[in-house]
């Protein structure tokens, strides 16, 4: 990757700051303001559809910044600046309400679809629950490799440009309000839109596996979202 040392230090420092880590400094660190100053990967289900996705977030988010306990729906989530739902499959109404409330208060919520490899029946439930819960419209999964070799990258355009390996199957966003922020060739893959004071980001191609595989670009993209949140 063509990342300079300066860029690396900048992003690392930025990411760590968001996560509440003390940065190396000659003066005592100021107390961390916790309100909307945390970010968390939040697994709704213990059984992730794409386990390596959750492991990817595990790998890059410090332990104190991630929580996968499905029962943790209280303040720990409400005061986060960024909530990530890795390889999400189902979204029941209480969780949808919780995350909508978070967004209304200013949280950025990343919804990463985990339905690329599911059965048709499971996908239909996924589509319905995303639509009813968060007003996310998605199209049927697309097998990017079904027509042979392709350029195996998803190109992100926001909040920074990044090129991240695809994960074979994409659940593209349908027609809806928002800004497309990633493409696989000419296929839209991700979008963002304002919800209240916060932001909803939908990823139709999971980012977690690329984090898990050590993709620096993927990590930089995630940290850039964390900084923007």
């Amino acid at each position: 990757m063509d990342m300079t040392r300066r860029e690396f230090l900048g992003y690392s420092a930025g990411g760590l700051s968001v996560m509440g880590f003390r940065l190396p400094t000659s003066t005592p660190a100021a107390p961390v303001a916790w309100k909307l100053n945390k970010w968390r990967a939040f697994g709704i289900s213990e059984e992730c559809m794409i386990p390596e996705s959750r492991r990817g977030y595990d790998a890059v988010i410090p332990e104190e910044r991630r929580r996968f306990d499905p029962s943790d729906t209280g303040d720990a989530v409400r005061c986060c600046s960024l909530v990530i739902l890795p390889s999400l499959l189902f979204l029941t109404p209480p969780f949808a309400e919780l995350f909508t409330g978070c967004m209304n208060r200013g949280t950025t919520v990343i919804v990463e679809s985990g339905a690329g490899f599911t059965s048709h029946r499971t996908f239909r439930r996924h589509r319905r629950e995303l639509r009813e819960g968060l007003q996310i419209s998605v199209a049927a999964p697309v097998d990017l490799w079904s027509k042979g070799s392709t350029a195996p990258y998803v190109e992100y355009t926001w909040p920074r440009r990044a090129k991240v390996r695809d994960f074979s199957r994409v659940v593209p966003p349908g027609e809806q309000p928002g800004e497309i922020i990633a493409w696989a060739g000419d296929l839209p893959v991700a979008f963002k839109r304002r919800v209240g004071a916060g932001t909803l980001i939908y990823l139709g191609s999971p980012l977690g596996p690329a984090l898990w595989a050590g993709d620096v670009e993927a990590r930089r993209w995630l940290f850039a979202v964390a900084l923007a949140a």
Partner: protein
Amino acid sequence: MKKSIGDNMIPKDWGLERGLELIKKAGFDGIELWLGDVPWFQMATTDAQVRELRRKVESAGLVVSNVSTGLHWASPLSARDPAIRAQAARIVERQIETATLLGTDAILVVAGLVTEEVPYNEVYQRCVEALKPLGEKAARAGVKIGCENCNSEQRFLLSPREFAQFLNDINSSAVGLHLDVGNIHDTGFAEQWIEIHGPRITRIHLKDVLKHRGRSGDQSVYTNLFLGDNNWPAIRAAMTKVGYDGWLIAEMEARYRYAPDQQFYDTAQAMDRLISGRF
């Protein structure tokens, strides 16, 4: 050292019993059973049928050297699709179960498959993660999983040191290397793999390789023992050096066009020469 050959080498129209008779007559001590490759040994084969298979092998004066499979080429442990991965794990589990039923302590697994679509880093990590719990299952059953070095075909773990790191990362005494001395092609030398892996070698596949053909043409790169480019005296010496005294298993890609039974006799005799070190 003992000699074995795969049951998938038995001519299609011969049937198991006649094939076992030939294998014994040709001078082999055992047979490698290929799960999914032959009609008598499939994923759907019941435990009772597997026991009957063992009875037939032993009645022919042979034993089962190991349980192999080619099913992981279609269902690799490294697949992105969780359903395919689950199937791959189930294949390994069935290999472990049948190894126990068949009275052997080794299975062959093609661990991962790097493709244009599924990149190396993913394949590596997924295989390590899959093989850790499978290694525990194998250890409980007293079976060793031998990950085969299918270097060029897998495009994975191309050097012996990387393979060693892979095994270190899995960190299970029940997971080792099923070394194929023909699979290394022009990426290295079999004798060096033997030296580096020594006690981690669970079984050895024997075939020779025509390095100049490469893998891109339409001709097989593999050939019968002593016809290709492997340095057999060096390979034999390396086996002695690391104290390998286990099974040698013939794996021929090309079959004789005529007199298919002759290949069994020729191969067994070539293996005898290798074992005795008479070159």
